[in-house]
Structure formats: C-alpha cells, structure tokens
C-alpha cells in the first residue's frame, strides 16, 4: 500500500525472498474449456519464468493460447475454463485461489493492458472515473487524492492536457490516447508485473511505435516486469529479453531473444520471422504469410501440431509429437528436424 504522496516509483522489494528468484513462474499450465459438450485444451503444458524487471514475449497466432495463458494468471477466464498446473507469483500459488483472493492481485501487483482501447474502456464512464476506480479499489484514498494521483498517472503516460481529459469520455480521445489511458489504469497501483496483450495491434503504425516506446520507458522507470503478448516477432526482437513461441496451446520454441534470433530452430518460428514486413520490401505487395490455416484445437493431428503446415515435415513428424527439450543451453524447442542443424532431435 502506498501513501498519499507516493510517486509511481516502485518501493524496494521486501527482502524475504532470495534475490534473482522469479517474479512469475508458470509450470506445466494447462487450460481447458468446456465448449458445447466438448473439451478444448487451449493451453497445454506451458512453462516459463519472468524475473523482476524483465520482459518476456509470448508470440503466436490467434488461438495459440497466448492470451488464454496470460488471462489464466489473473484468473480472468470464463467459468467454463479449468486451469491446472502451477502459476506462482512472488512464490504464491495463484491456481486455485478464490475469486476474492485473486482480486487482491488484479490491478494491484499484476495489471493488464488489452488489445483494443476502444472496447476496453467503458464508453459511459468518464476517463477520470475509470482511472480513480482502479486506484481506489486497492488504496484507501479520498476523492481528491485519487484525482491527483490519476492526473499524475495521465501525465506519466504523456497524455496531453491531462486535467481536461480527466473529465472527458473515451469517445472524445483518439485511439492512441485511449491506449495511454488504458496503460494509466494498469499502472494505477504500481504493479510489479504488466501483461500487455497485443497492446498495439489495434493502433496505427506511428502510434504503435509511440506506445511501445512509452511502455519501455515506463518499465525502466518503474522497474516492472512485463509479459508482452504479440503475433509480431519483430516487436519481440526489439523489446523482449526472452521469447516464447506458442503454437496450438504449446510452447514450441523458447530462448533468450539474442539466442533465438541468431539461431532459429523451429520451422514455425522461421515462418513467423519471414512474415515480418520489412521496410526494404516494395510497397503495395501482398505481405508474406505463414502458409496454411491455424490449427483446429478440437482436432489436433497425432504428431507435431505444426506438421500439416510445415515445409520440412517428414513421416516421424506426423506420427509422434516432438518433446519440448533444451537442445542448446537456454534454448528449447519442439521439433524433430530443427532448422540449421543436421536433424538431431533435442535431447
């Protein structure tokens, strides 16, 4: 709990945990949905850790489980979902927490920024009320102090004319300004972890860059860790410390950013990489895409889920799924015939 005059700078961590201990640790997380009498496994055995102040990028197509897995962290899933495995935040197990216990974390130690700022703000509530709500849910502040804090937050996210915006409605702001408001809401209680779910996808390119810059600055200033969800590997390359590539609910490649881009092993990651638009490309050309359709979670093939779309798939790939193992120090992948190697499966 911060006092009234607290700035947004984070306080020093309580020293009861070993330095270097992960802030967020997912171990073998599985999320299944009941869906019209069937069970869909949206996330299947996902594990990763995020250290304080670091950035992890979760990369994948729609339906790859990246959003579902991060919503699971905050328990923001519909009641048709069941989560198993372990999600630890500062050592505390989050799986199985009651709604009430979970609420202590939501917006307080873990906050979220969503994809579409137009839809993620309440159209009938003033900007100011939406931010002060986020503040007052977790801190006992009177109206005046909460307003001061909200304006401070709006300035922090570099929203011009913060006092005026405070009394306006979302529709009076541009898309980029709205996303700044959404970020201000997320920062309201000085979270230690920010989950940014496709935070820039709905914005135009110039605004995207500005918002990403803002997020990076804020992260440095406030010492937050960040889980960045995106379908854009290029974005991950410039902002993340570590990358997890997901496909059909599973992690298929995971490595520190540098390692990954120096040595892409999984053909799916390679396809994603090739799909990044580049400035050198001639304009008005169709952008390259990953061939084929995203997998049908209800009818996954027996072997590697990517095999039907994989250019280098062989019989083995269609028969059994490759394990997700550490093929090189710090670099894990799930592929029988990884790129740039002579076909050795990971140990």
């Amino acid at each position, binding site marked *: 709990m911060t006092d009234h005059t607290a700035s947004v700078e984070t306080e020093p961590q309580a020293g009861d945990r070993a330095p270097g201990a992960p802030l967020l640790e997912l171990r073998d997380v599985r999320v299944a*949905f009941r*869906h*019209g*009498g069937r069970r*869909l496994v*949206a996330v299947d055995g996902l594990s990763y850790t995020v250290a304080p102040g670091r950035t992890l990028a979760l990369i994948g*197509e*729609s*339906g790859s489980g990246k*959003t*579902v897995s991060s*919503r699971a962290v905050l328990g*923001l*899933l*519909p*009641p*048709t*979902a069941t989560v198993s495995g372990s999600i630890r935040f500062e050592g505390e197990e989050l799986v199985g927490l009651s*709604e009430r216990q979970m609420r202590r974390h939501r917006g307080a130690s873990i906050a979220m920024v969503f994809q579409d700022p137009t839809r993620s703000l309440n159209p009938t509530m003033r900007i100011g009320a939406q931010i002060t709500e986020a503040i007052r849910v977790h801190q006992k502040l009177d109206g005046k102090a909460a307003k001061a804090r909200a304006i401070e937050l709006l300035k922090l996210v570099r929203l011009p004319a913060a006092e005026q915006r405070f009394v306006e409605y979302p529709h009076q702001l541009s898309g980029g300004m709205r996303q700044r408001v959404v970020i201000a809401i997320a920062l309201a209680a000085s979270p230690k972890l920010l989950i940014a779910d496709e935070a820039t*996808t709905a914005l135009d*390119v110039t605004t995207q860059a500005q918002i990403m810059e803002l997020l990076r600055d804020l992260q440095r200033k406030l010492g937050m860790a960040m889980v960045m969800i*995106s*379908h*854009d*590997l*290029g*974005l991950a390359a410039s902002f993340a410390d570590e990358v997890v590539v997901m496909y059909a609910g599973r992690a298929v490649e995971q490595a520190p950013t540098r390692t990954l881009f120096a040595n892409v092993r999984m053909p799916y990651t390679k396809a*994603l990489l090739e*799909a*990044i*638009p580049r400035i050198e490309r001639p304009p008005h050309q169709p*952008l*390259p*895409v*990953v061939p*084929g*359709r*995203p997998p*049908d*979670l*209800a009818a996954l093939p027996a072997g590697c889920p990517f095999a039907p779309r994989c250019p280098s798939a062989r019989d083995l790939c269609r028969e059994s799924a490759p394990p997700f193992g550490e093929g090189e120090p710090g670099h894990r992948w799930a592929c029988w015939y990884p790129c740039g190697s002579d076909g050795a499966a990971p140990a």
Partner: protein
Amino acid sequence: MAAQLPEADAQVPSLALAPAGAELERPRGGWLRQLDVLVPGTILVFLLFLFFVWPVIGPVGKPTGGNILNANIEPWSAGHIFGTDPVGNDIWSRILYGGRNSIEIAFSVQFVGLVLGGAVGAIAAYWGGAVDMVLMRVLDVLIAFPALVLALAIAESLGPSKSHTILALCFFSVPAFARVSRAATLRLRERPFMLAARLSGTGTGRILLRHITPNVLPQLVTFALLGMGIIIILEGALSFFGLGVPPPNPSWGNMIFEGQGILSAEPRLVLVPSAFLFITVLTFNLLGDALRSRWSSV
C-alpha cells in the same frame, strides 16, 4: 499492421467473462434438451385439439341459444363443468368455441401480417432509397396512429364482426412485421452471397424469392409465434370497445367483458375465460421464446 497471420478461427472459446455459474449457450441435441420446445408444443397441440376437434367429436353443447331456465348453474354440476352463464349457456362450450375464434383471428392476423408486412419490409430494404423512405414513413404514421381510433372507426362504420376484427388487428401486425422483415433483409443485403447473386445477374424477383425469403422467413415465423399472444390479448381488448367477436357468438374477450359487470357476484365468469386466455398466451410465448433462443444461438 504487422505480419499478416490468418485470423481467429471459430473454435477458439470466447474469453468473455460471465458471472460465475453462467452456461448461457443453450445445449443442443438430445430430446431432454428440447424440452423447452416440446412442452409448450405439446400443450399447444392439446389446446388446438380442444378448440377445433373436441367440439366436433366430444359431448360439447352449443355455445349459444341457452335456456334462461338453466342460467347460473354452479360449476362442477353434471353436464356443465364450469357451470352456465346468466343466459344459460354452457361456459365450457363457450370457452372452446371462444378459443377457436381467438386462434382463428390471431392466426389470420399474423398470416396477413407475415405475408404483407414481410413483403413490404423486404421490398423496402431491398430497393432502399426513396422506396424505403416512403414505405417507412407510411409505417411510422400507422404506428403513431392511435390504433383505438382506427378500431372504433372500423367497428362503427362496418359493424362488429370477426372479419372486421381481423382487419382492425392487421393494422397492428403489418407494420410490425414490416419492420422485422426490413431489418432482417438489411442484414442479409450485406452478405457476400447476396452480392454474388446480384453480380451474376439474378433477377430481383428471384433474389427476393430464392435468397431473401428462405433466410428471413424463420425469423418472421418466430416473430409471428411471439405475436400470437399479443393478438389474442388485443382481440379480447377490442370487446371492451364494442368491436371484436359480436355476442352471442363467444370469444374470451367478450366473455370477460360481460362478466366484468357482475365480477363481485360471479367471479368465475371472468376467471374461467381469463385462465384459458392466460394459458394459451403463455403457451405461445414459451414456444416463441424457445424458438427465438434457438434462432439467435445459431
């Protein structure tokens, strides 16, 4: 936009948060799960049997021309389950024949509304522009027009009769159907297959008949079912103003209206037809509601 990945596929479960315990999708398949349609459907069939078949094959007396000597017989007496009314007619028989009148009127009104209103709405939406504007303004006038004035005018000038009741009630149903049909057609117009049909030179009549009708009709039929109850209630209301089925010919509306005067002495004269009115309307509402939820979840 960054790398163009194929868009979200249908089987990704919705991530929307619903309050705990929500399972709002209606489960489909299995007869147990069809109970919401089967129960009111069965009751409706039974009611239709009572109103249309039973008076023909069963021991049901005449609904009119009762003997005054038999007036006000208590309920549950031999030959008169619900007793008789102040002029000696068997109430049970009047209920059945009145029900037949109610259903016939409501069905005719909804049928005219569906055909006429459905066509007007589809045409307005399909042609758009000035045609749409004019048709919609005319409907606005009809909707803003106090229906009572029209109903009374019809009653006064043409005299009360079943067909005039139907005529008066059609002024309610036609504009309502036209609106539903227009909205449904407008949604349809934007769909790719409609564009394809137009681009490939399919004639207007054929498009309306082959493409629009089959897609709009289920919605109109559901709307017709949901409206049956309203029309049955309105038909009864007209009896309060001297329109509706003219006595001594029975309708639930005129039975209730006649019983109103002696409510404190003989409440059953109001309560029995009211109960049948209520059950019938409820049956149509339940059926319409169940069908609508099917329709919207498709």
